[in-house]
């Protein structure tokens, strides 16, 4: 298995700052905006962005939720290994709010489709945007595109994009692996 580094920790830091600035550009003080990280892996990115916005850009009024989409996935009973759920932590209503869904890699778009359904359980949002760190082009199964992207990648289906975070793997990095 060969592995190629796509982004190192410096690249990721620059991208996170850019994404934070783009969010501020569109959402100003975030009074009516909530960030929703998709469990499990999107939540690391969501927490990073949330901390960055609070600490570096003085956004005080920022709500962050974590959403698990397991029960909304369309591959229930279609896989050999059972689907494992993670915790959902959304302790606010999203009725009338602007929602930014955050995930690490956008691939087939099916997770985002599930998230769009799941989020409705917490109210009717004003609108929903999508932020991803890695956008894999040409691999979408559904008509879903991100509003904010860290880096666009042309990876073929035999390749895997792996995002690691210092919280879990001691290092921020994005790799492309040959399966």
């Amino acid at each position, binding site marked *: 298995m060969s592995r190629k580094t796509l982004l190192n920790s410096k690249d990721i830091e620059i991208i996170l700052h850019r994404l934070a600035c783009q969010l501020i550009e569109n959402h100003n003080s975030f009074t009516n905006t909530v960030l929703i990280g998709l469990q499990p892996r999107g939540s690391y990115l969501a927490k990073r962005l949330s901390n960055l916005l609070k600490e570096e850009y003085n956004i005080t009024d920022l709500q962050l939720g974590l959403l*698990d989409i*397991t*029960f*909304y996935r369309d591959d*229930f*009973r*279609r896989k050999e*290994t*059972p*689907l*494992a*759920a*993670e*915790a*959902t932590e959304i302790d606010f*209503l999203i009725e009338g709010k602007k929602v930014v869904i955050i995930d690490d890699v956008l691939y087939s778009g099916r997770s985002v489709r599930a998230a769009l*359904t*799941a989020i*409705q*359980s*917490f*109210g009717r949002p004003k609108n929903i945007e999508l932020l991803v760190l890695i956008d894999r082009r040409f691999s979408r199964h559904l008509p879903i595109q991100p509003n904010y992207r860290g880096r666009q990648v042309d990876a073929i289906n035999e390749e895997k994009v792996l995002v690691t975070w210092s919280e879990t793997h001691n290092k921020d990095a994005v790799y492309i692996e040959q399966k």
Partner: protein
Amino acid sequence: MDQLSVEHLLGIKYLNINDIDLIFKTADHFKEVINRPIKKVPSLRDITIANLFFENSTRTKLSFELAEKRLSADVINFSASQSSVKKGETLIDTVNNILSMKVDIVVMRHGNVGAGVFLSKHVNAKIINAGDGTHEHPTQALLDSYSIREKLGSVKGKKIVIVGDILHSRVALSNIYALQLQGAKVKVCGPTTLIPKYITSLGVEVETNLKKALEWCDVANVLRVQHERMDIKYFPSTREYTQLFGINKEILDNLGKKIVIMHPGPINRGVEITSDVADSNQSIILNQVENGVAIRMAVIYLLAQQIKR
């Protein structure tokens, strides 16, 4: 993620501790789901579940039906009083007829011990035992343990006394299996006539003095006297039963500690438990009912996951 080690939920006897942990972990997620503004997930859209109740039930049936609907399964209900069972049809025929309508999971309550096990050997569907005679009632035991875990942090090492009609109680047997599997100590307390002769072979102690039993325990699970299952008189009068085994505020206040009071329902207020105890802040009776839906969602979800397309 782990899978259940069993293909059906027939009794706690067939489960191991990993199964119980998995069910509880899954139930945690569903408990969060049922407290959302919209309490429904689409996981089981293509699953059909038949609820077959050959014996009366209100809360268990409602709880199962709600759990199934919150998972988006299609549900058909059947109760023996309106069915061909009365016309002489056998259990297997009844169930196979229902299965020809493409049912994936059968939830069954039956008056005969082992009805679920019997069915699981003869029909091609997942079976969930919702109570078989005086034998087992696994989902009740799971939700009882889950409620203890929620209230006291864990079940391991806790002392639980089951008070009342142990002889006729499937809740008692399933609870004993479930609690011991999780490392709790269990005593039973009731009139000697209502305690099965060989119950100590399960490793539980018998205490016929209610006060001593309550002083020993952290949790008292109070059972109803099942008059409908009694063919002979087991105690002289209900009044005498209440005097010796009824739990009232005075007994609880004199214990010097706060124990948790549970009851699987339906309650006979003033018989095995007084109203002020049932409605006190020591009682988790209504939490048990809420947790029942989450536990049943977890069990159904985990079994449905094993069904091949």
